[in-house]
């Protein structure tokens, strides 16, 4: 019983508050400027002014945040756009195999094996590239397995942007070729790839290697530093870039680009055997 009376009391009190609130707001609403004193008017005006100012500053802040947001968005979009456009896998051609056409093999190409062989394997490689080094023994085995049925052509594609000694090693092989010892230098460079890859004085190291291989070191050094040598390597590199080669090693069998490099010796052998059988 007691609790009910307390509850009723509370309800009445609440009702009283409500009435008071309504009457108060009504009087405020009815209040006219004319009924206010000078001070009150001033206060009211100041209040309004302050509210306006607050709204304005809020708007300003919102605009400011918006501007920074848009600015940041533009920058992020620019980075994203460049990152997507510059992706090598996003090149316009969906089927690179069809579009990559190799310049024909001529007698001026560095080659080994039977020049009239039914199979011609062309490799675009960089002496400093680790996967070229990994394919080196496989290609060696392939050459042995096919013997006179295979002609092997080496073309320079030094990835100079990522390998600091790619250019000088290619130049060394080119200079060795002038003394008829290209393949010796080719083998030596791949077999000792680890030794010279991060060499800061690779140029001197190459001269040392030339001595080891029994080349005339003075002639070699002259050829190595000859601007014509660099020009020839760069020309070879440019021709590889011109046909859109994306990396090394890149192989061509009888002029057909191998878009996915064979997985190991057996795979490679099967690929060549299939070509041979098709002829």
């Amino acid at each position: 019983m007691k609790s009910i009376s307390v509850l009723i009391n509370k309800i009445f009190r609440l009702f009283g508050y409500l009435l008071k609130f309504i009457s108060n707001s009504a009087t405020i609403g009815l209040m006219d400027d004319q009924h206010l004193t000078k001070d009150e008017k001033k206060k009211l005006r100041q209040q309004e002014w302050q509210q306006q100012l607050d709204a304005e500053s809020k708007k300003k802040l919102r605009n400011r945040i918006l501007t920074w947001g848009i600015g940041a968005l533009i920058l992020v979009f620019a980075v994203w756009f460049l990152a997507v456009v510059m992706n090598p896998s996003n090149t316009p051609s969906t089927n690179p195999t069809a579009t990559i056409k190799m310049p024909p093999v001529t007698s001026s190409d560095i080659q080994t094996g039977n020049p009239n062989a039914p199979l011609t394997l062309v490799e675009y490689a960089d002496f400093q590239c680790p996967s070229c080094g990994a394919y080196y023994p496989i290609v060696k085995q392939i050459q042995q397995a096919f013997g006179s049925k295979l002609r092997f052509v080496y073309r320079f594609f030094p990835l100079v942007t990522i390998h600091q000694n790619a250019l000088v090693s290619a130049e060394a092989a080119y200079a060795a070729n002038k003394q008829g010892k290209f393949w010796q230098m080719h083998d030596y460079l791949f077999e000792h790839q680890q030794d010279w890859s991060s060499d800061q004085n690779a140029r001197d190291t190459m001269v040392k290697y030339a001595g080891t291989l029994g080349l005339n070191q003075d002639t070699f050094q002259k050829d190595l530093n000859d601007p014509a040598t660099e020009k020839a390597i760069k020309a070879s590199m440019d021709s590889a870039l011109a046909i859109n080669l994306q990396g090394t090693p890149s192989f061509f069998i009888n002029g057909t680009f191998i878009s996915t490099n064979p997985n190991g010796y057996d795979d490679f052998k099967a690929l060549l055997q299939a070509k041979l059988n098709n002829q």
Partner: protein
Amino acid sequence: MMISKPFYRLSLTINKLTLLIILAFLAFVGFLDSVYLTIAHYKDLTVPCTLAHGCEIVLTSKYATFLGVPIALFGAGFYVVCLALLLLYFQSNKNILPTILLGLTTIALGIGIYLVYLQAAVLHAFCQYCLLSELIDFLLFDCAWWLWRRTNS
């Protein structure tokens, strides 16, 4: 004589805005250039070098990275800071900002001159993207100096 002053002031404000736009444009182009080189560095891409055969030499030289980070990335950061300062100045009109900008662009100009020297005298090779960035550093410095003189006169 009475009327000349407001006109003078009006032309000054318009020029300041134009200057800000020029500065922002330069910084944005510089930003794109450095981001391009940074992405090329991290994606191991060969950048097409149409001017000469120097890009590879310059971009793979030991000067192309600082503490293992490509300097193009530092450049991109610098341009972003420039853009932020410009936007901040555009909004707040605080006179300290052109001074900071001038200080930054002076440092960038110094580094730019050093990089041009490296390309010309040490590497004997030029890379057009780097030269563009260095040209932008130079122009940014010019405009920043101009802006600084206007705000402090």
